[in-house]
């Protein structure tokens, strides 16, 4: 019974919606809302990796590259090409999908460490292009992102972006949950454990991996667009290696393959650095230590470990 509730799609969505609704009530200032909005944005990107790495077991150390493409789409589109910001966001998502398709086809044949390094290379290339094409991107100094205008309404303000990013996260979570319980999701989870056996029952392993890669890139791209639009400013740092690593860390700390886990992992890595700034020069060291402690105590990730604990209690 409890197991069924814990794994139902609706329960997960209601839980997330409740958290998103409650945070503004508890937040003492708009600073906290901004941090929460950042959590929703990174959680959305992490959900992409939940599908790619959590379900299908394929590593990417270059997903910040897609974050960067999405971010610059809403900066370059309106500023240089005169496109509508919302249209730019959609085009950015499409571009991420196309780039993922082109890049994924050759590199998804690689496995394990080799795939990790190939995706790492992809992320580095995106960051490099964003840094060096200064005529278009403003180079290392970054560029201003024009405010989004929706039907004559100028979208700004922390609380507005809070609700937009929260809504985007809910949509992302719904899509990730949909996939999980579908024929495609079962195929992805199957090839995670045994590609030979999955192919043996007719799963087109290469095609399914590519679909997961493209989808995860679109998630990261939309997250990048939201990040740029909310901040009103973007630098090539968005596509940086550190962000790629953080995304992977989020899904692993939160719990590989768990939708709630991706959100918890994002909260862990976005909120903790903010909370730890009081420690000043020790901030990084303590953060690193906390990551190690959590991984040692909860090797399956926060959410799956807690879930197991809860089920054992109930049983």
């Amino acid at each position, binding site marked *: 019974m409890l197991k069924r509730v814990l794994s139902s799609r609706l329960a997960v969505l209601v839980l997330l919606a409740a958290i998103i609704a409650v945070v503004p009530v508890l937040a003492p200032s708009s600073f906290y809302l901004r941090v929460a909005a950042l959590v929703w944005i990174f959680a959305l990107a992490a959900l992409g990796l939940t599908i790619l790495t959590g379900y299908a077991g394929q590593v990417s150390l270059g997903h910040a590259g897609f974050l960067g493409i999405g971010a610059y789409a809403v900066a370059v589109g309106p500023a240089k090409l005169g496109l509508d910001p919302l249209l730019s966001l959609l085009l950015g998502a499409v571009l991420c999908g196309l780039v993922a398709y082109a890049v994924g086809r050759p590199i998804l044949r690689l496995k394990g460490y080799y795939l990790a390094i190939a995706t790492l290379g992809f992320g580095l290339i995106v960051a490099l292009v964003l840094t060096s094409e200064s005529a278009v991107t403003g180079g290392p100094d970054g560029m201003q992102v024009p405010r989004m205008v929706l039907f004559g309404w100028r979208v700004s303000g922390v609380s507005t972006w809070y609700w937009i990013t929260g809504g985007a996260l809910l949509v992302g979570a719904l*899509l990730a949950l*949909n*996939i999980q*319980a*579908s*024929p*495609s*999701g*079962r*195929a992805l*989870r*199957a090839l*995670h*454990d*045994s590609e*030979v*056996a*999955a*192919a*043996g*029952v*007719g*799963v*087109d*392993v290469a095609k399914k991996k590519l*679909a997961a890669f493209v*989808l995860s890139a679109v998630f990261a791209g939309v997250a990048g667009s939201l990040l740029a639009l909310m901040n009103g400013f973007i630098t090539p740092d968005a596509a940086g290696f550190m962000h790629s690593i953080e995304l992977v860390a989020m899904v692993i700390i939160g719990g590989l*393959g768990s939708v709630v886990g991706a959100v918890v992992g994002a909260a862990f890595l976005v909120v903790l650095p903010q909370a730890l700034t009081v420690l000043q020069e020790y901030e990084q060291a303590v953060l690193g230590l906390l990551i190690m402690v959590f991984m040692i105590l909860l090797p399956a990730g926060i959410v799956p470990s807690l879930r197991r604990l809860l089920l054992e209690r109930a049983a």
Partner: protein
Amino acid sequence: MTILQVEDLGITFGGLRAVDGVSFQVSLGEVFSIIGPNGAGKTTLFNLVTGIYRAGRGRIVLAGEDVTRVAPHLLVRRGMARTFQNLQIFFRMTALENVMVGNHLAERTSFLADLLSLPSVARQNVRTRARAMELLERVGLAHHADTTAGDLPYGVLKRLEIARALAADPKVLLLDEPAAGCNAVETEAIDRLIGQIARDGVAVVLIEHDMKLVMKISDRVLVLAHGRRLAEGPPRQVRSDPAVIAAYLGEHGAREADRAHG
């Protein structure tokens, strides 16, 4: 009716002729067993037939079509499914989900439909689940349906693999040592299951070390040694074949038998 025909199949690994010019045919409804000492090339033969290894020579004909170069995931479409000697289970999924994946080919939804959870996906899930449940019942594992496969014992997983392969609705079913590591009760269950599958008209190709089981349920037996055919025929005939006896008397005997044969 002949459903699978293997002609002069061969592969070498760095000079080792793991399978060396093997031919055989299997008919619908028949249990065809492949036996032979460890390292004889039985599993390699399966890997060739299922397209995991690319044959260095020879031909594979399935239901009248040459499938020698067909990719593994496309062979299922033409009616071939298998189990694995070293379990290839989806350990993170439940037993039921493992079998549901076996039904993948019959599932008529697209990635986009799955993403949006269109009504067709829910209907497909209901069909797939019902079929998987039926198969779990058939192999006697219905009570394990919601258990994560990683938590199930070895003997149970062997049967789970059979259920998963059956979910693909094969005309030819290749079983690589289904009774290995199973106790007497489990072996008995597998014995009955194989008999049923064959009676349903499926061609069963069985690799097995349990001689009692092989002699009991096989229509014909192929004996391999050093990648080559040592003997083939009904169980009785094979059992009394001097070359076969020699092969089973150990390495020395096998070499003698090879000389006698070639």
